[in-house]
């Protein structure tokens, strides 16, 4: 066997101890005769050791308590509520992190071991026909969002700063009646170089606003232009069983006066 005939895979398997004995013996001989073969084997050994060494320190770190608690809480009512906060602008919308994309997927799909059957929270626009995720959250909504829900007419957006992010909340439609007044909003966020958006429906019952459904993040629509109802905007409302949105005049009856 000459060096040129020894493939990378063979030398790697040799370095990893995965080569059958007969072949391994041949490589041992080749490596003894040819420094180039020995060098290639050494490189394969080194690459694994270095990759492992880079990540081994994590084994010595204590596992964050919230992860251990989350495991212990599996199957109990507290399951999924001990999630660490996400360091993202979505924290603003869902402060306790109880509705994260992953949590949403896990809840929506139940036990699915196989490769993705779709991203339930994916952009309605980029995944036509994708079911919006219904993710009820008991978390109190942020004050800035409540302001918009209570006072801002459909089509009139409000901007807020959140660290490096600029968050825009745009009411898309209103539904319901005095008993349960619901509003669909698009919460989009821009950051130097990128932007994303989620669409959410929040409902006011007995004076309290709760998040009823959420979809996205999707790519934010062009900012600054006239408001155009997104093609998919009815999907989320339809998923909740809502009919036609309220007219501007109807909506105004349920809004508090703008400040």
């Amino acid at each position, binding site marked *: 066997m000459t060096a040129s005939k020894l493939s990378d895979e063979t030398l790697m398997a040799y370095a990893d101890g995965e080569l059958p004995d007969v072949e391994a013996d041949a490589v041992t001989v080749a490596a003894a005769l040819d420094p180039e073969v020995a060098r290639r084997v*050494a490189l394969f050994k080194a690459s694994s050791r270095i990759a492992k060494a880079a990540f081994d320190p994590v084994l010595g770190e204590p596992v964050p308590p919230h992860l251990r608690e989350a495991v212990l809480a599996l199957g109990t009512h507290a399951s999924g509520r001990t999630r660490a906060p996400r360091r993202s602008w979505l924290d603003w919308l869902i402060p306790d992190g109880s509705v994260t994309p992953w949590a949403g*997927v896990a809840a929506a799909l139940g036990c699915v071991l196989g490769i993705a059957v779709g991203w339930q929270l994916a952009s309605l626009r980029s995944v036509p026909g994708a079911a919006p995720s219904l993710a009820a959250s008991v978390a109190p909504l942020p004050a800035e969002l409540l302001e918009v829900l209570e006072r801002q007419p459909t089509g009139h957006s409000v901007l807020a700063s959140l660290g490096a992010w600029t968050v825009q909340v745009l009411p898309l439609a209103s539904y319901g009646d005095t008993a349960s007044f619901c509003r669909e909003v698009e919460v989009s966020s821009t950051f130097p170089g990128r932007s994303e958006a989620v669409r959410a429906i929040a409902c006011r019952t007995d004076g309290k606003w709760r998040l009823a459904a959420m979809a996205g993040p999707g790519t934010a629509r062009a900012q600054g232009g006239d408001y155009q109802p997104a093609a998919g905007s009815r999907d989320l409302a339809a998923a909740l069983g809502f009919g036609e949105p309220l007219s501007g005049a109807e909506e105004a009856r349920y809004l508090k006066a703008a400040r």
Partner: protein
Amino acid sequence: MSDEFKTELLALLPRLRRYALARTGSIHSADDLLQATCERAWKCRDQLMPGTRMDSWMFKIMTNLHIDEIRAVSTRGIDAGPDALEQVPDNRWQRRIEGKLVLGEVAQVMLQLPEGMRDVLALVSIEGLSYREAAAVLDVPMGTVMSRLSRARTELTNRLKLNQTMMDWAAE
């Protein structure tokens, strides 16, 4: 059964965290992914056959969940591609070997590798699975594992520009 399951899961957390870190490159994303994986595993615990290695089974769930996430970010255009590298340097994982190499570099190079190559590197080189076990986790033939792994490791050594000091260290 469920207490046993949780005990085993708790014991595996450090290794699962290491795999999650190797996949995501950021400890925060790793912990998010790990928690989601535990939740999925719990729902699927009836499918864990007796005799199946729980680590391999958990790696599989995590891999699939993470692929979901990668697909999702590629449609929403955030945290994917080169931008994701911004998250990588986490001082806790930067250890110098002989003062020559910041190990954070390894994580950076890994994140630049195609997903399939990173998978096998994480499973075989870091987690110590055999080629056959890695093939089962990823649902690909063993030959695919080998070709991806050899390319991944060649890329790693090329991009890190291993010098003699590094080689000596790694050969110890």
